[in-house]
């Protein structure tokens, strides 16, 4: 899923303070799963903002709404009336959602309330970790199911750097060395020999390096 984190209240408050009617728009998919922008977070943020503005003696009307997905126009339509009666939209979706809202509602200022962080997983309760960079040409077969492009701090293709110690990355002792994991897993398969194979440079055209990407599915075009 796309993992995101809600922006600090002070930053959000600063962004929205010039509007008198604000719609906080949640998204019921990825950001809901990572507790950044679902229905519950919309409600909590709305209360916190109301309280904070009241303390400052500032009158802002805040409306709450959460739709299924902000990255699909079909769901965004449901928000049209609410968007229309407010001065601005604070979107708690990922960056894709925020842009879809901006794209559909030409006259409404749209502000991001979430920092989109990465494509990752819920590793355990309260811990999300990055697992994919969306490079557009998956090599996980070569790397025995552990991606060094997203999980090695130096994107190394041919083994661990000299900073790997006790299974941890030189950048931060809280980061597992992806190459230690690759080696351990290869060993458990009895495939250490495979790691001697030279993996050539990647063609990054399939990644963001090739410019903004498009995926066309002819079979789905009506």
């Amino acid at each position: 899923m796309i993992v995101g984190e809600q922006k600090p209240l002070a930053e959000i408050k600063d962004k929205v303070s010039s509007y008198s009617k604000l719609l906080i728009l949640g998204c019921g998919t990825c950001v809901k799963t990572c507790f950044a922008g679902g229905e519950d977070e919309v409600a909590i943020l709305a209360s916190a903002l109301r309280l904070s503005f009241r303390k400052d003696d500032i009158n802002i009307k805040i409306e709450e709404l959460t739709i299924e997905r902000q990255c699909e126009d079909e769901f965004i339509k449901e928000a049209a009336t609410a968007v229309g009666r407010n001065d601005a939209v604070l979107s708690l979706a990922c960056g894709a959602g925020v842009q879809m809202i901006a794209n559909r509602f030409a006259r409404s200022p749209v502000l991001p309330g979430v920092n989109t962080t990465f494509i990752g997983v819920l590793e355990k309760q309260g811990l999300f970790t990055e697992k994919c960079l969306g490079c557009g040409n998956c090599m996980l077969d070569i790397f025995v199911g552990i991606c060094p492009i997203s999980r090695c701090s130096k994107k190394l293709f041919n083994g661990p750097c000299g900073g790997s110690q006790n299974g941890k990355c030189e950048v931060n002792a809280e980061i597992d060395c992806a190459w230690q994991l690759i080696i351990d897993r290869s060993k458990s398969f009895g495939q250490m020999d495979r790691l001697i194979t030279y993996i050539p440079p990647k063609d990054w055209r399939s990644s963001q390096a090739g410019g903004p990407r498009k995926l066309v599915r002819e079979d789905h075009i009506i």
Partner: protein
Amino acid sequence: MNASKLREVLSLGKFAVTAECGPPRGANAEVINKKGTLLKGYVDAVNVTDNQTAIVRMSSIAACSHLIGMGIEPVMQMVTRDRNRIALQSDILGAYSLGIRNILCLSGDHQTFGSEPGAMNVWDIDCMHLIHTVRKMRDEGKDLSGFELNTAPKMFIGAVENPFADPFEFRVLRLAKKVAAGADFIQTQCVFNMERFKEWMRLAYEQGITEKVHILAGVTPLKSARAAKYMATRVAGMSVPDSVIKRMESAPKGKVSDEGFKICLETVHELRKIKGLHGIHIMAIEWEEKVSEIVKAAGLFPR
């Protein structure tokens, strides 16, 4: 144009000595000249670091060129952190045109440690790819795209290895991989943990790798007990045994750096007995004046 003297020394089976010279955090070449003067005649070649520890410094290529002007042979260090394959290849061609004949290929320290922690890194290719690229340019006369170069850069290709990093079992495999990619010589991380280094060398020797590549062991004279502890705890991938730290700590006041010098000499002496080891690489970080003393005291002078 001249060929690499370092290659000549090593291919003749002589015990090579290289040292390190970190370029200044400024635009004055005088710093390079001073360091070069301290090293000239005592080593076969001088490594010039490439924005080491990700701190912005004078470019390696320019500092190498200053050394050449002084009659010193440089080893241009090149990291893949800051440049993509276009810039790396372009700089290799430029470096060769300036008379640079040795290159050391590295991935580089992570930028979050350096003076620009907010910088975007590159790592379009890794150090293994860089070794491969330089070999292709040299031996096939083609760049990575396959374009035929009108003059191929005939570089003597170096790489690094850290026998003290984990996982240990992979360290010899990785060495073999670098040799297969095209490394002619290897410079290692500083040896303080002799036991582990010997074990790594034994494996490399037994697997016949020392026949295919010249390994130069890194040595560093310790200036203080604090420096020893710093290296032990704060520098990624370093192994400084407690016994070394203790020796530094129990040295009498005013004699601490002498003890560091003594440890360094003992290390060099031990290293020279190791089968398959072809030289040393002295990293006297901001203590370049000590290099000539080490070389002389170790009986490695004249060069």
